[in-house]
C-alpha cells in the first residue's frame, strides 16, 4: 500500500503558487473542498485560474477567494448566486469562461484518462463553438474539445483510506471523481479517513492511484443553498 496520508491541510496544499490553475470539485456548495479553500484564502495566493462548475456564494466556497481578489479567471458552467462575482465580472477584474456543464465534466475526465481531445455535440452552432473545430459524424454536428491542464485538483470525498481510495455520498460526488488525477497533484479531503483495508475494494469510487495527498478535514459546514422541504401531513 502506498500511503497518501498527509497530516494537515497545510501539508496538503504545499506547493500552491500565484498564477496556478486549480480544479475544484463540487456542485453549488455541495461537495466542495471546504478545508482546502479556506487554506488557499489564508495563503493569499493570487492570479488563480479556477476550473469549477460554480463559483460559490458571497461568503462561502469560492466566494471566499473572490472576496480577496485571488482569482483571475473562472472556468465554469454556471456562476449565479454571487454578487461579488458579478461585480468583478462586469468590471472586468475577473475573466470568466463559461462552458457547457457536460463539456466541463468530460474535459476533466479526458485529462484524467489521457484523452487529449474528443468530440461533443454540446455548443454546436452557438458561440461556445466559435473558433473551435467542428465535424460531422453520422449526420450530426460536433465540436472538438480538449482535455484540461491544471496544477492542482482539490477534491472533497466522504470517506477515504490511507491508500488514497475514496468514496462519495449522494450528489456530493458530482465533479469530484473526474477531477482526481486530472491535475498534476490531486489533493483529497475527507470527512473520515480510515486505515487501508477498511473500505470494500468493490465499492471504491476512485482508486488511490489518482490521488497524491489525502487528509481528514475539520469542521465541515456543508451549507445548504436552497433548503426545500415539505411539511409532514
Amino acid at each position: 500500500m502506498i500511503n497518501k496520508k498527509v497530516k494537515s491541510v497545510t501539508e496538503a496544499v504545499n506547493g500552491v503558487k500565484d498564477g496556478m490553475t486549480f480544479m475544484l470539485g463540487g456542485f453549488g456548495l455541495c461537495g466542495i473542498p471546504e478545508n482546502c479553500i479556506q487554506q488557499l484564502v489564508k495563503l493569499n495566493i493570487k492570479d488563480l485560474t479556477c476550473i469549477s462548475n460554480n463559483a460559490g456564494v458571497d461568503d462561502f466556497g469560492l466566494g471566499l477567494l473572490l472576496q480577496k481578489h485571488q482569482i483571475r479567471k473562472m472556468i465554469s458552467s454556471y456562476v449565479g448566486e454571487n454578487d461579488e462575482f458579478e461585480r468583478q465580472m462586469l468590471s472586468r477584474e475577473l475573466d470568466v469562461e463559461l462552458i457547457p456543464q457536460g463539456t466541463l465534466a468530460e474535459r476533466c475526465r479526458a485529462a484524467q484518462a489521457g484523452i487529449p481531445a474528443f468530440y461533443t455535440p454540446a455548443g454546436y452552432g452557438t458561440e461556445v463553438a466559435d473558433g473551435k473545430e467542428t465535424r460531422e459524424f453520422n449526420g450530426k454536428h460536433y465540436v472538438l474539445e480538449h482535455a484540461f491542464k491544471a496544477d492542482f485538483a482539490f477534491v472533497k470525498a466522504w470517506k477515504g483510506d490511507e491508500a488514497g481510495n475514496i468514496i462519495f455520498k449522494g450528489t456530493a460526488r458530482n465533479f469530484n471523481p473526474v477531477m482526481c488525477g486530472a491535475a498534476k497533484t490531486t489533493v483529497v479531503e475527507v470527512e473520515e479517513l480510515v486505515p487501508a483495508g477498511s473500505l470494500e475494494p468493490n465499492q471504491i469510487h476512485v482508486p488511490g492511484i489518482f490521488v497524491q495527498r489525502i487528509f481528514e478535514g475539520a469542521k465541515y459546514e456543508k451549507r445548504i443553498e436552497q433548503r426545500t422541504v415539505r411539511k409532514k401531513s
Partner: protein
Amino acid sequence: MGLSKEQIAQRIAKEVKDGYYVNLGIGIPTLVANYVRDDISVEFQSENGVLGMGPFPFEGEEDADIINAGKQTITTLPGASFFDSALSFGMIRGQHVDLTILGAMEVAQNGDIANWKIPGKMVKGMGGAMDLVSSAENIIVAMMHTNRAGESKLLRECSLPLTGVGCVKKIVTNLAVLEVTREGFLLLERAPGVSVDDIKAVTEGNLLVSDEVPEMQV
C-alpha cells in the same frame, strides 16, 4: 390570459410516458413532476448526479449532500442511484434520457433555442442546457408565450445567443401547445378561452393553423 405556470406544467405532464427517464430544468419544468400520472413509471434524472429523485424532504430531514441541479434539497425513491458528472452527462449525451423539459427566452420556428444569455446583462452561464439540447431527441420547452415587454418569444429567428440549433420539438406556453415542423410552428392546442387570433397576435414566427384547433385539457 391563458394558463398559470402550474397549468403549463400540468399540460406538459401529459407528454411524459410510461418508462421515460426525464430531465427537468429549473422553473416551470420542475413543477411537472407534481402532475405526472401515478399509474405510470417514470424516473427523474438531475444532471448533478442522481437518478430516481423523489419529493422534497420533510422538514428536518434534509441532507446537504442530496440536492438537485437547482441546488434544492431532495429525496430519492427506491431504485435511485448516485453518480458523477461525467456519467451523468454520458446519460444525457448518449441519449439515454428520454425527455428533456426546459425553459427558454426564445424559440425559433426551426427549433433553435436561446435561454442562457442576454448581451449586456449579467450572464450566469448555460449550466447543462447546451449538453441537454444538443443531445436529447425529445425536447419540450415550457415558457410564457411572450416576454415581460409583451413581445413574442416564438420567433422566425432567435435574436439572442443560441443555446442549441434545430433541437426543440414541442412548446407549451400559457396560450398554446405547438409543434416545431419544417414549415414553422404548428398550433396543436389552444389554452381554454384563448382564440387562434389571440395566439397569432403574439406569435412572430410562422404559425400553421388547421381548420379546427382543439382546446387543451388541463
